[in-house]
């Protein structure tokens, strides 16, 4: 790992230094497939960097971490550059001071890799309309995380308000294994679903989202209940002849029960942020199912 710190700098100096570091290592910057812009604060920075660099193993990228510092200080840009042997991509941590905070895009825009996709990820707080944010405007894919909001349930329920094609939320990504298992359970016809429920630890924003998806697809009322956790613990669906359930109490192994069939155990582990991010970066086209689901959630609002 080669790292380099620059203070009171600008984008073109950073760009030149990246090229120099790359050449010193004898590895020209080839093969990077996207730029990941990560606006965050000092508190979330460390974990975000760790997850982003892990995800970069699957999707080599230039990672631009943008941290807002003291607004009262004179405008200044500090940068920390890491060009690793351990990771195939590049990492730049940008610290913005003073008036520069309001012009972050002027620093980020010249550092984007040419002619490849740009993804923005807010690991902590995020703007109300990500696509209209100065940094969000640069990206065609914008990833937020409702779980990091002060009120996660309210945050996910209001995502539809600021939605534009290309938005997505890690709350939705966390559901993929559950949705995949549910879809597999429905591969053999089970008949119409009349009602159902989703149980999770209180305040888990993925639960209402899963309920909204199920009610949207199955056209049945799905309620949300509280449990001891961890995370999502149970999905129950009333089907002809009984109940189809998936229960998971240890965050690792789930049990699938269907009427007239033996119970089966299935691995259903919670995933790390790096894995969630990797899944997000695999497809960069708008997620229409997510859009339909958050709209459904917003419409049903208080009823679930």
């Amino acid at each position, binding site marked *: 790992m080669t790292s380099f710190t620059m203070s009171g700098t600008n984008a073109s100096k950073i760009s030149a230094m990246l090229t120099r570091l790359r050449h010193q290592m004898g590895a020209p910057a*080839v*093969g*990077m*497939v996207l730029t990941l812009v990560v606006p965050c604060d000092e508190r979330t920075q460390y974990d975000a960097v760790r997850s982003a660099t892990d995800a970069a*193993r*699957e*999707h*080599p990228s230039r990672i631009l971490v943008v941290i807002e510092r003291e607004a009262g200080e004179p405008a200044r840009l500090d940068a920390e550059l890491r060009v690793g042997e351990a990771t*195939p991509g590049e990492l730049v941590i940008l610290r913005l001071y003073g008036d520069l905070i309001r012009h972050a895009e002027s620093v980020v825009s010249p550092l984007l890799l040419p002619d490849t*996709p740009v993804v923005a990820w807010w690991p902590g707080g995020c703007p109300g309309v990500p696509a209209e944010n100065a940094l969000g405007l640069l990206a*065609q894919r914008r990833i937020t995380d409702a779980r990091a909001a002060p009120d996660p349930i309210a945050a996910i329920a209001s995502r539809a308000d600021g939605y534009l094609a*290309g938005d997505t939320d890690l709350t939705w*990504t966390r559901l*993929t*294994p559950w*949705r*995949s*298992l*549910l*879809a*597999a*359970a*429905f*591969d*053999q*016809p089970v008949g119409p679903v009349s009602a159902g429920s989703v149980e999770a630890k209180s305040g888990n924003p993925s639960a209402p989202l899963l309920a909204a998806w*199920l009610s949207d*697809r*199955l*056209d049945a009322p799905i309620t949300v209940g509280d449990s001891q956790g961890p995370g999502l613990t149970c999905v129950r669906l009333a089907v002809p002849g009984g109940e189809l359930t998936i229960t998971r109490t240890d965050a*690792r*192994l789930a049990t*699938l029960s*269907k009427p007239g*069939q*033996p119970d*089966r*155990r*299935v*691995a*259903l*582990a919670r995933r790390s942020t790096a894995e969630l991010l990797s*899944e997000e970066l695999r*497809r*960069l*086209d*708008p*997620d*229409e*199912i997510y859009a339909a689901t958050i709209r459904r959630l917003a419409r049903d609002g208080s009823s679930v």
Partner: protein
Amino acid sequence: MNHDRHVPEQAEPADGGAIAPDRPRVAAPAEEAITVATAAADASTTIEALLANPLRDPRDKRLPRVAGPCVLVLFGVTGDLARRKLLPAIYDLGNRGLLPPGFSLVGFARRDWANQDFAQVTHDAIKENARTPFREEVWKQLAEGIHFVPGEFSDDGAFDTLATTLAEIDEKRGTGGNYAFYLSVPPKFFPVVVKQLKRTGLANPPEGAWRRVVIEKPFGHDLASAKELNEITSAVFPEESVFRIDHYLGKETVQNIMALRFANNLFEPIWNRGYVDHVQITMAEDIGIGGRAGYYDGIGAARDVIQNHLLQLLALVAMEDPTSFDADALRREKEKVLKAVRLPHDLALSTARGQYAAGWQGGEPVVGYLDEDGIPLDSTTETYAAVKLEIANRRWAGVPFYLRTGKRLGRRVTEVAVVFQRAPHLPFSEDDTEILGQNALVVRVQPDEGITVRFGSKVPGTAMEVRDVSMDFAYGESFMESSPEAYERLLLDVLIGDPPLFPHQREVELSWKILDPIEDHWSAQGQPEEYPSGSWGPASSDEMMARDGRVWRRL
């Protein structure tokens, strides 16, 4: 991917009417390309399943293709392939969440094992060879469905036990009578195993269930034996239930040949006799025959590698674009091009074969082929084979395809190199372009998967000197750290019932029709030419190229 950026190109003309005839419509081919690329990347779950399942939606691309409930019955679990590739691949599929709930694995072999013994063997194989990290919960899911049936293939009782075991698994695990039988055994056992499956009724699915059989190469040793072998399986299983594994076709880079050709507009216009000088398809191995003497002697390099892997690569490189990526359309195009393959008139001048002699391979002394354990001293089996083929169609007439394979060569490498003609006119002095070679596009299949493009570039300095440089796309660099193993993809395709990546019996027979005359010719030639281990094959192979004014690429 850049949907947003393409939008302006898609704008309709200002008058709002139809697109002006003189203005080519840019957007449509781009959209098509995306569709083709997606289809090439992963054929989606069958349409019927999508329609029947309210939770699936073609737009919901996060949900992976998961096989339906089923049992995989593995014959030959004690073999090397099972331990190194198949069992780990099953675990890796599980770890990626692609195995259905209730998935069960039944081992069958002549061992005095109980279920837990087989589970232990599986566990060890996974720990040692799996690509993805070991996770306890995934293992638990898999272990619950592991069963073992001991017995010999000739033992009726053992197969009756297998049938009862499978019925019990259906009962206990809800697998619905869907079984895939994987015959990881030498072909001489196919007849007895298939007969037993028929006798016990395991080959006939009840209404709504499926039965599939998976077989490994070699698919015979000539046309006649390939047909014989097929009669055995086709008497019991219909062709659409027979999955012939050519693991090369499961490799990401091989599938990428289709993406490269049919999802891009950059290469296809020059992918023909107007621009291509010739094509070289190589599979070189640095190892000798190892412990495979019994199988290898009498078979040789051409039957072992050219008949299946290299001719399949040739088909993918040379075929016309299929109307879709479903099995029928794809196989039809491959068959068409295999049918168009012609052998040169004089096989003595357009083929070469060799046998490795003792030598130094990568810094270690190694013995020659005739000194290997179990090889008769007068063996005429070739360990190196090179052939020149022509394709008689409009696209390729006059463009030779050179195929070569060998053991104990300098390095392990498999690649397809499309070598282009020289520029028709060089406005430079002869001295300036002295060291300029021909442009080439190389698909590196293994190791170091990727694509290399070679072209001329100016050497920095005051003189206008032009020299070859290469531009590189490495899979490992731009995508996953480790791409899925070929067997993962192929096993999943078997369980889903998606056959495009498996050669049809017609392709197998066509390939033998190409190879049989060459083998006949060679059989009258006596001892193959010796080449030192660690070299790049016999001199006659280089002479064959030299006669055409060409050289093999140095690998």
